[in-house]
């Protein structure tokens, strides 16, 4: 809602400037987003009288106007020729400024003719969005030579208010003025609405019938006869424009002006086109169609409330008129609708049609049922004032104004909630300042809720009024007596531990959006993604089924930006369809590019064994001992020779591998991409906290170290050989590290040498060479028998 300050001051005549008033209102809960000054850039434009208009010698489009500003005659070239000698027009002199142009005007030559400044259209002056001609100012009571800005009150400020749903009364100038008057202590001036009526009765010309009193408790139709449709006064157009509405015609502008001022939406019908001159408020027939004013055919349901005449629907109640009974240039008599439509009905209709208008927005949030008559009176007066015509006595009407409700508040309860002593007196002062009726009983204040305060329904609503009006600065600052220790669920803590381990392992944490595209799903082969019903774009059509796709896109983006080495991880949530659907937390990591950096680094790209190393670190830090590799992965995302599932506690819990080169190419990624993804809950379930007796295990006796290298055929897996070695070695083996894989040299082709560094140790004594040699001999025999492994000399 944009509230023009001079308009507000008509009802709350405060002396405060825009900034001070805005600050005061903000402190009372009026959400002011900014202060606009639509005419800040208008300066030096004056009213001038057209003396003559002649053709431009070198242009068919342009013309030359001679204008008189009272001080002399000036030649101005104009691009349009809608003015005649004698007309008053806005002349932007050389040196003046207009909102539509960045620089001050000068004298310049246009096709060989000097133009001293320019004549302005309504748009150039920010008065109306009209650029069809020079603005003619004949009917505004202006003199040639006077300053346009001050004469038309164009030095206004505008409060830009975000109206929160609980305070629809702020959707009117008067509503905001009411709050401003209460806040500043100036008296609130009532709207001067009483119209001059002729004797003829409105009820003798038109009738109103309400079939659905729930949807429309009250309907009132005023009749204005003999209007002349044309443009409305320039000041009115300027105010409407500054309020964010488009000037249309004097009749429509009058209804909009009255609505902006009072908050009561109005609708003007051409009385001649209303059949039978009777208004019927009824539900639509199922499937009924109506072409609304915006030229769209709307299909309606029996939920929708309609305004009908004797024959057909003429408007969707509270939303938009139909094109049947629209006011046109030929309109002479007007039926002016002012009604109370209940909010839920209008809200449902407007939402279903996706049609939210200035009128519907007010009805959707709740209008004042007591304001129906005021709105009708104000609208009728303005129509008569701006369009001529006479207002018939009274109104054709139906329904009734609902009775006001009373809500009570205990000052003690208010004090208990706010944390400071409110006191009965203090509360009464608040309600009096707000203009609420009230009566006090023992320990209780009963408050009469005015029709415009649709938000006050129960005690707490009144307590809020007290807090708001007394000011939040009154609040003390105290800490509550929290009688518990802070903490966090194990799952939350676990996720953060995982982050710490991976950051410590040299990876950078990324946070990515939760969406996946159909392309992502095709890459992963996942067919159980949850679809978003109303995505903003196709990229965000599904919820991600795994974290890895987002990280891969991240790798591609980093490479595109020239980042060579990428080591990222994410801890996040994924979803999968099913009954019930699955929401689970995962950790994923991706490694791509040079594995080491710096002047001495080996020139080696990341591969799957780097990812495996990170996983091993993670498992160790988390105390997950029972983990290992599962089957190779054959889905299209994975490199078939370098990927397998990850198992925790014997069950598949994730994946480890490299990206299939074809997929990498499709994603514009260069080089090997190693990655892993694993379920957090699976990890957590298998995570064993460090043993409390950890110091008892610190060895007292030195180990006996032996290096053994075995030559095996290529097909022998290092893991299998290691497992067998470890098993055969038994409890004396305290550590076994595979430290070298060697091919070539003396190793026959098709073979490789695997070298192990073995530590043997006893917790009770220093081992003898004989004991160790005996174990070594067993190992050699076992590996020879099981794998054809040959002990390599040296």
């Amino acid at each position, binding site marked *: 809602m944009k509230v023009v300050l001079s308009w507000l001051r008509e009802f709350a005549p405060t002396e405060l400037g825009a900034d001070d008033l805005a600050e005061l209102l903000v402190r009372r809960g009026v959400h002011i987003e900014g202060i606009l000054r639509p005419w800040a850039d208008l300066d030096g434009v004056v009213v001038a009288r057209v003396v003559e208009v002649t053709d431009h010698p070198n242009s068919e489009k342009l013309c030359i106007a001679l204008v008189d500003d009272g001080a002399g005659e000036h030649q101005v070239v104009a691009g349009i020729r809608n003015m005649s000698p004698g007309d008053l027009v806005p002349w932007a002199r050389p040196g003046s400024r207009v909102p539509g142009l960045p620089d001050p005007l000068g004298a310049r030559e246009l096709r060989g003719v000097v133009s001293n400044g320019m004549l302005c259209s309504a748009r150039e002056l920010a008065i109306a969005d009209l650029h069809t001609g020079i603005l003619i100012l004949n009917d505004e009571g202006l003199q040639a030579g006077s300053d346009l800005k001050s004469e038309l009150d164009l030095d206004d400020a505008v409060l830009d208010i975000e109206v929160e749903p609980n305070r629809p009364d702020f959707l009117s100038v008067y509503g905001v003025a009411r709050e401003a008057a209460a806040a500043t202590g100036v008296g609130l001036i009532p709207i001067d609405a009483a119209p001059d009526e002729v004797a003829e009765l409105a009820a003798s010309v038109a009738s109103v019938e309400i079939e659905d009193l729930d949807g429309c408790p009250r309907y009132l139709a005023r009749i204005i006869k003999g209007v002349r449709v044309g443009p409305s006064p320039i000041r009115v157009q300027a105010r409407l424009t500054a309020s964010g509405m488009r000037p249309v015609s004097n009749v429509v502008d009058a209804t909009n002006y009255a609505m902006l001022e009072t908050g009561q939406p109005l609708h003007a019908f051409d009385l001649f086109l209303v059949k039978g001159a009777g208004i019927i408020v009824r539900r639509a027939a199922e499937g009924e169609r109506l072409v609304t004013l915006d030229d769209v055919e709307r299909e309606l349901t029996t939920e929708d409330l309609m305004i009908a005449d004797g024959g057909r629907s003429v408007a969707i109640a509270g939303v938009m008129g139909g094109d049947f009974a629209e006011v046109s240039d030929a309109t002479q008599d007007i039926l002016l609708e002012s009604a109370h439509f209940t909010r839920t009905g209008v809200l449902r209709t407007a939402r279903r049609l996706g049609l939210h208008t200035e009128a519907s927005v007010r009805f959707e949030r709740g209008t004042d049922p007591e304001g129906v008559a005021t709105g009708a009176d104000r609208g009728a007066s303005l129509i008569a004032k701006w369009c001529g015509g006479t207002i018939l006595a009274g109104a054709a009407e139906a329904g009734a104004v609902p009775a006001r409700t009373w809500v009570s508040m205990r000052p003690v309860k208010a004090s208990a909630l706010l*944390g400071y002593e409110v006191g009965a007196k203090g509360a009464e002062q608040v309600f009096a300042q707000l203009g609420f009726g009230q009566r006090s009983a023992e320990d209780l204040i009963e408050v009469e809720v005015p029709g415009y305060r649709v938000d006050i329904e129960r005690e707490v609503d009144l307590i809020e009024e007290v807090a708001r009006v007394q000011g939040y600065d009154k609040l003390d600052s105290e800490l509550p007596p929290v009688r518990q220790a802070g*903490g966090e669920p194990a799952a939350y803590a676990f996720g953060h531990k995982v982050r710490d381990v991976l950051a410590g392992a040299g990876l950078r944490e990324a946070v990515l959006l939760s969406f996946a595209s159909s392309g992502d799903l095709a890459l992963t082969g996942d067919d159980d993604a949850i679809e978003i019903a109303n995505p903003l774009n196709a990229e965000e059509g599904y919820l991600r089924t795994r974290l890895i796709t987002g990280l891969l896109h991240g790798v591609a983006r980093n490479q595109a930006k020239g980042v060579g080495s990428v080591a990222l991880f994410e801890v996040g949530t994924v979803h999968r369809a099913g009954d019930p659907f699955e929401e689970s937390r995962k950790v994923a990591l991706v490694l791509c590019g040079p594995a080491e950096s710096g002047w001495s680094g080996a020139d080696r790209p990341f591969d799957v064994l780097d990812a495996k190393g990170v996983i091993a670190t993670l498992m160790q830090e988390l105390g997950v001992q029972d983990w290992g590799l599962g089957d190779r992965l054959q889905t299209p995302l994975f490199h078939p020779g370098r990927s397998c599932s990850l198992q925790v506690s014997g069950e598949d819990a994730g994946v480890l591998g490299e990206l299939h080169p074809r997929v990498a190419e499709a994603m514009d990624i260069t080089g090997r991409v190693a990655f892993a993804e694993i379920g957090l809950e699976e990890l957590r379930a298998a995570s064993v906290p460090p043993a409390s007796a950890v110091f008892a295990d610190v060895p007292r006796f030195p180990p006996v170290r032996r290096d053994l290298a075995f030559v095996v055929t290529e097909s022998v897996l290092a893991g299998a050989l290691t497992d067998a070695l470890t098993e055969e070695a038994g409890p004396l083996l305290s550590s076994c590290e595979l430290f070298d894989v060697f091919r070539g040299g003396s190793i026959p082709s098709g073979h490789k040498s695997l070298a192990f560094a073995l530590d043997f140790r006893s917790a009770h004594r220093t081992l003898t060479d004989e004991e160790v040699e005996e174990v070594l001999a067993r190992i050699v025999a076992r590996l020879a028998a099981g794998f054809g492994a040959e002990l390599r000399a040296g």
Partner: protein
Amino acid sequence: MRALEAELERGLGLFADAQDAGALDEAQTAIMGRKSPFSQIQKSLGSMSEADRREVGRAANEARTSLQEALEGRRQRLQEAAEGQLLEADSIDLTLPGRRARRGSLHPLTLVEREMVGVFQRMGFRVAEGPEIEDDWHNFQALNIPVDHPARTMKDSLYVDIEGGPELLLRTETSAVQIRTMQSQQPPVYVVAPGRVYRRDTADATHSAVFHQLEGLAVDEGITFSHLKGVLEAFAKALFGPDQRVRLSPSYFPFVEPGAQVEVSCFKCGGVGCRTCGNGWIEILGAGMVHPQVLENCGYDSERYTGFAFGMGIDRVALLRYGIPDIRMLFDADVRVLERFGVFA
């Protein structure tokens, strides 16, 4: 005697001239070896007269000691010289960059979330979590936003298609966790709920369809609006510095009443007004007293218990704190951005 003196002279000279350990060893053999003249003299002592033997013996011993000392001294100097050469050869260009372990980092959202959550935990709040896919009741109705409430148009929700099930959506606020917490326990409740929320928003510098909130909820006997202010003030001081002030203005959220928008004095300019804040205040969160209807929706006695709730954008705090100009930079996995961060805030 003369020969002895000559040998001593000769030995000291040879030792001093030896340029390496080998030459010194040779000199030692030549002067003090079994067959050296010096040894011959000592061997010949037995054939001397008692008086001569005493005199020559003593002189020989003295000479031997002198030679021994000279030898050891020379040996040590030679060793030191050799070691010096070795170390000199082993010298390194210390201006080369140091070798570093690969550096990892935590995401700014994680860093900020930990800081924020930590402040509340130290005040006795516990972390609570809830699902990202929510039903209408938890996300709206229980929070005092019935189907026909105008506040439903305040933000657009993203709905998910789940066949046969009830209508579900991606939670628009972490406030749904308030409801789930109250449904699962009796007062006293002191929780904070960090989490991911969703809006049907077109992304720009300040909007993202995915962002993060930290929700807070306290429900107990005797909880007041002043407690809310006290907790938020303590939070602001802990997060932004001890001189922080907090300002509450009336605002509207359907699930609280009275509601407040909460501003902290600008931590960039100290509250005098700058490009970050404009007027010296930075809006960081919405808050208020839990609406009695919400308490009742969760089965709490709204006469006996009162509470406060607040919700703030973790992303927003991260942007402010680190001066990140565009929220989209948080979700881009751009290593050039991420490497500005470490493992501590």
